[in-house]
């Protein structure tokens, strides 16, 4: 009945969707699996699994190298995904899409290829207080190497960035702003359009870490006008080992290569090399071909469901989950921003998140417990760690009820 209602109001047939994800249909420690670690990584639907298997079984060959038919066909399939990704995030051209290992590599690529030539001593980079380590450490290293300064936009108790404080941080020395669209540990959706516009008034480029926005909402990089946008395949129901860096062509042309080797060159002599044009300039070596093909199948899957439908359904899960968890005695939600994605971090006063995680696991419920690669966020809230439940469109109200029941059992064990 609940699922029928969900189908009518939100436009997603969740029972049918769940049947697409074989991993969900199993028992863990004797209980039906409730998978609530979607902000870490998402499970894979049959269309993605089948596509990768079929590609390896019938179509696999190298790309951009062979003159034979199979390589030509593999190259076409591979290039078609680049166009698909460009469409998915509304990039002006597929040439602005660089395939990387994931968000982390995409950010490191920008720190190396854009940061090293264009950021120097005394320059400033602005990040935020609620970044993942992947959007802190590359900039910190760059600053140390160059003698540049890292500045941090503070957040309030709800986990929202203080835009007035951000305005004060922007100076003539600011050379880059790098913030996430959605916080992985708090769920905050940042006002990235405002952040970008304010930086652009001073001609400062902006990188958006989209690892947590790509799964939950439609993104239009041209409407946002961001200079760089990075996301991972494995968080949008695709394979691991594949991610995307979008960058405006003017930046890609100015940037230096990231890694050097095959496929990123135009011509090589022992004296001199001329580099290929973007995107190939940034993709040295044989790429993760099957992973790219799998990413294409994942984007197909998401677009068939519709990102707006997904967002509406996940907002409903967030609202229901928040309401239910708030009723648990002693539970405190960390991250109470007005605009949030379907991520709920929480703590108990005397129960450590690792113990919560283990006792939930004993009941078949998979959540994340720890600092979520955001130690500065934990410090901001004066806690060592949180337990985090993160919802996907394949989760249900029933599963949230299982979580609540599981947490009541945790409390009973520690009483």
């Amino acid at each position, binding site marked *: 009945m609940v699922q029928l209602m969900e189908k009518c109001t939100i436009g997603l047939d969740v029972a049918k969707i769940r049947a697409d994800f074989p991993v969900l249909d199993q028992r863990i420690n004797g209980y039906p699996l409730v998978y609530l670690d979607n902000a870490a990584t998402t499970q894979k639907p049959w269309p993605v699994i089948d596509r990768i298997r079929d590609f390896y079984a019938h179509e696999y060959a190298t790309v951009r190298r062979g003159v034979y038919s199979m390589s030509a066909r593999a190259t076409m399939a591979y290039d078609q995904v680049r166009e698909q990704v460009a469409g998915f995030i509304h990039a002006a051209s597929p040439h602005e899409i660089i395939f990387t290992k994931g968000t982390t590599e995409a950010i490191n690529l920008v720190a190396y290829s854009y940061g090293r030539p264009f950021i120097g001593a005394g320059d400033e980079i602005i990040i935020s207080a609620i970044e993942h380590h992947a959007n802190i450490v590359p900039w910190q290293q760059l600053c140390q190497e160059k003698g540049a300064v890292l500045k941090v936009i503070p957040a309030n108790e709800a986990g929202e960035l203080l835009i007035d404080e951000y305005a004060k941080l922007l100076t003539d020395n600011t050379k880059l702003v790098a913030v996430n669209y959605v916080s992985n540990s708090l769920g905050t959706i940042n006002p990235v359009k405002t952040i970008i516009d304010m930086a652009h008034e001073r001609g400062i480029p902006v990188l958006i870490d989209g690892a947590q926005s790509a799964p939950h909402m439609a993104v239009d990089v041209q409407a946002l006008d961001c200079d760089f946008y990075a996301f991972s395949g494995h968080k949008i129901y695709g394979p691991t080992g594949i991610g995307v860096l979008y960058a405006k062509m003017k930046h890609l042309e100015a940037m230096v290569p990231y890694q050097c080797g095959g496929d990123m060159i135009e011509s090589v002599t022992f004296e001199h090399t001329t580099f290929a044009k973007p995107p190939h300039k940034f993709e040295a070596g044989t790429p993760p071909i099957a992973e790219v093909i799998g990413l294409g199948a994942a984007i197909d899957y998401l677009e068939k469901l519709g990102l707006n439908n997904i967002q509406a359904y996940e907002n409903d899960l967030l609202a229901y989950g928040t309401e239910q968890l708030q009723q648990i005695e002693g539970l405190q939600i960390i991250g109470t921003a007005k605009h949030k994605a379907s991520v709920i971090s929480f703590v108990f006063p005397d129960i450590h998140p690792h113990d919560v995680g283990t006792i939930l696991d*004993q009941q078949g419920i998979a959540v994340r417990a720890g600092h979520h690669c955001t130690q500065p966020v934990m410090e901001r809230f004066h806690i060592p760690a949180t337990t985090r439940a993160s919802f996907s469109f394949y989760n249900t109200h029933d599963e949230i009820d299982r979580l609540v029941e599981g947490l009541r059992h945790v409390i009973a064990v520690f009483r």
Partner: protein
Amino acid sequence: MSEYNELYQQVILEHNKKPRNFRVIEGANRYALGKNPLCGDQFAVYAQVDDHGVIQDISFQGMGCAISKASASLMTSNIKGKTQEEAEVIKEEFQKMVMGEFHPEQQANHLGRLTIFEGVKDYPVRVKCATLAWHTLNAALSGTQQEVTTED
């Protein structure tokens, strides 16, 4: 789920709630700080060792999960009054037990009540919680390292 929980036994829960020797020893002649960088847990271990190598007093402070805190608490209770050599043997037995390489019900041992941590062997991701205090004890007694991590 069953009421009997292999991992979270009553003694562990009780030591988590009321840890023994949870204090600083002023002027301790052995000290180390242990950290688990994967989860941020950390404990300081203090000990007073006399000229004959007997651990006259031992204590700990810090923060961690129920498993790590109870392990530290029971460790201090067990080790107090023993020699450094005896403590070393117990540490070895404990570490092997939680990794499933030592079976106290089949092998002669010096673990006493510490055998309640045997269930940890079925939770590989929690082994580092159980051994954090013991890594720290080792560093404190050897006197070579003031700071140690579970990844060392």
